[in-house]
């Protein structure tokens, strides 16, 4: 007898992501992923000046502000065939790499660590033993017994005061929680330290982007940061040196804490390398252009079909035809209607809502279902890391090897590369990518300094819009994976605009051929110990860093949290 479980966060308006699973014999046998809110932002852009699109699209979502701004200007620049000064590339690159690091750290420590860490169990830890364990793993200066003792005291006083604060609603004592009290305490200590670490990334975005959370410095044609070595209020040498301090601090945290913690969680939860693979076609974009055209990138990207890195095919430049011609979106199972049957390419994309109800075999989501040459594809750090390995990208290989080796030595048996095709593998890939991003950021910092030293302070090329119709697309390897904006511009005004966001790729519903998407596929066969507390479903969905229907942000007066309905 199968049992249906619905997880629907009823915070905010109609909620964001709803996941339904059918469980039979203690395992997931069927799954539906449903975006629960309409995102009609594209319609707002129609008829507007393309130079304003970035400022509007960065309001789509609260976490991915910067990434929409960057992708939007890239789309318009692609339509105009406009090259931008390398200084602008370097400044944009530093902003997006800092943003990615911020996202990855916050996602792991503040949004998903509690799926694996039992905070209540940490109260029983011996802080001396915790420090011994921590110091055996890493020479991070904040792994000592004083820090662990203080963390335990802080936790005790917090729990003693009757509030779990940040940790309310965790699945304490759940049978799927496996860490020792000491490892749990170590995780709490690093949770607190991560909050300090993420600030360095935020500071970098603020220093370069003029403002946070919404950057102000992007423009079609470059950036609006004047560069001068001798003036206040612009990008001065003093500010540049300050940036480097933040970059170095992030590097230390990523290498000595984040990558080590991921390896430890992976080793202690090694059984989770068996679950969550899902769709194994991987799609990722190259990023961090170092030339004005966007043909030389610091990190590679492309397509890997069926998990076979031998079949990797690269995407090589802005405007790349392989990516441009492969993308379509289906609304067969989404709450939209198209004016003609079949999926549509984003340039021809339509945004006409057609809400039915939740239909298991019909329409059930506000997300469209994208395909790449007719196939579903998984996007995100895992896709990016696998493409990096396939392309022989040395920093990616170095960090991936470090994580796998550390985890293998903790487990006492070899964890192969193939273990990355999993729920826990997506977390590991995110940490690997954070390491790579920190190097990318530092390289761009050096490139900017070197270029300014040569006397080049240009940061903007003025765009001019022709009469008639032009079209273009921009891509960015965002924290959650491949993001693309597609625009048609007629007589200098936006005639069509479509955003194909990472979570559409991953969380989209069944497609034109009724094939399930990456979220849905990844849930198949996941063990479910307790249908009333489906922690395992959250673990797998959280491993994607889910992010959709992002927009709504209302304070609620009720304290109801997540509705878990087991039928």
């Amino acid at each position: 007898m199968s049992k249906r479980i619905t997880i629907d966060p009823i915070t905010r308006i109609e909620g964001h992501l709803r996941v339904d699973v059918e469980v039979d014999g203690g395992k997931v046998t069927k799954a539906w992923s449903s975006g629960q809110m309409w995102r009609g932002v594209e319609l707002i852009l129609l008829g507007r000046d393309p130079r304003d699109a970035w400022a509007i699209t960065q309001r789509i979502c609260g976490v991915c502000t910067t990434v929409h701004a960057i992708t939007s200007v890239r789309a318009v620049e692609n339509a105009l065939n406009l090259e931008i000064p390398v200084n602008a590339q370097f400044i944009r690159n530093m902003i997006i790499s800092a943003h990615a690091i911020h996202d990855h750290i916050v996602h792991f420590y503040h949004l998903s660590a509690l799926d694996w860490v039992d905070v209540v169990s940490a109260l029983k830890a011996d802080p001396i033993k915790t420090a011994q364990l921590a110091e055996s793993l890493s020479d991070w200066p904040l792994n000592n017994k004083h820090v662990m003792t203080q963390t335990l005291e802080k936790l005790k006083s917090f729990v003693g005061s009757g509030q779990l604060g940040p940790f309310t609603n965790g699945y304490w004592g759940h049978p799927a929680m496996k860490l020792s009290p000491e490892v749990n305490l170590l995780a709490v200590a690093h949770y607190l330290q991560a909050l300090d670490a993420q600030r360095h990334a935020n500071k970098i975005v603020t220093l370069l982007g003029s403002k946070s959370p919404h950057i102000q410095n992007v423009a079609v044609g470059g950036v609006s940061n004047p560069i001068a070595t001798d003036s206040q209020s612009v990008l001065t040498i003093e500010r540049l040196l300050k940036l480097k301090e933040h970059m170095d601090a992030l590097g230390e945290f990523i290498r000595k804490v984040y990558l080590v913690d991921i390896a430890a969680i992976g080793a202690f939860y090694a059984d989770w390398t068996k679950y969550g693979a899902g769709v194994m076609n991987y799609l990722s974009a190259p990023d961090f252009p170092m030339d004005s055209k966007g043909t030389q990138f610091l990190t590679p990207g492309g397509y890997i079909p069926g998990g076979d890195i031998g079949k990797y095919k690269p995407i090589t430049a802005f405007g790349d035809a392989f990516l441009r011609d492969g993308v379509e979106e289906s609304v067969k199972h989404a709450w939209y209607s198209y004016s003609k049957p079949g999926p549509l390419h984003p340039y021809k994309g339509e945004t006409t809502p057609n809400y039915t109800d939740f239909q298991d075999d019909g329409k059930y989501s506000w997300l469209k279902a994208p395909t790449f040459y007719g196939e579903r594809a998984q996007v995100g750090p895992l896709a990016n890391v696998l493409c990096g390995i396939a392309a022989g990208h040395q920093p990616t290989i170095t960090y991936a090897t470090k994580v796998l080796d550390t985890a293998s030595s903790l487990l006492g048996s070899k964890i192969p590369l193939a273990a990355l095709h999993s729920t826990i593998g997506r977390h590991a890939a995110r940490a690997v990518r954070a390491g790579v991003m920190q190097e990318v950021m530092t390289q761009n910092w050096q490139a900017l300094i070197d270029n300014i030293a040569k006397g080049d302070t240009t940061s903007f090329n003025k765009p001019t819009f022709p009469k008639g119709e032009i079209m273009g697309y921009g891509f960015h390897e965002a924290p959650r994976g491949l993001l693309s904006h597609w625009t048609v511009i007629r007589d200098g005004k936006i005639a069509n605009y479509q955003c194909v966001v990472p979570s559409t790729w991953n969380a989209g519903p069944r497609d034109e051929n009724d094939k399930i998407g990456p979220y849905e596929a990844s849930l198949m066969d996941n063990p479910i110990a307790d249908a009333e507390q489906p922690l395992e479903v959250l673990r797998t969905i959280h491993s994607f860093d889910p992010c959709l229907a992002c927009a709504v942000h209302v304070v609620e007066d009720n304290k109801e949290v997540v509705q878990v309905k087991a039928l």
Partner: protein
Amino acid sequence: MRVVILGVGNILLTDEGVGVYAVNELLARYDLPEEVEVIDGGTSGMDCLDQVSGADHLLIADAMRAKKDPGTITRLSGDQIPAFFKTKISPHQVGISDMLAALNFHGLMPANIVLFGIEPQSFATAMELSPGIAAILPQVVDMIVAELKTLGLSVRPKAA
């Protein structure tokens, strides 16, 4: 004394963005003393952490659904504000309450917090307030100004 005024919400969804419209209106109408920092927080949560941490007073303007008539302005302070973390399936649910909970756990909570919650009328996709909410926007600004005055701050209307 450091005072932070944080307007949050999504300006692409009509009244969802009322908090942002309110702080922009405040900046347009008043000259504020330098102790006051005004932030357009958009839909971000954790990204505002730095600016908010350690403030003496935090004033927040946001849409709030409290099952009241559209346009009703509710003033909440201190413990009335839900500073708890929600179980999250999406990071976009890292909202104000999560940010406050994080500050609390770190001992960086602003000493006084006041939230002006405005009951919304519409969440349609559009970059302007619904007429009913636009009409009460000046009242929201007046309430923020009155709050600043009770803190002993000098707030002056801009010269016309």
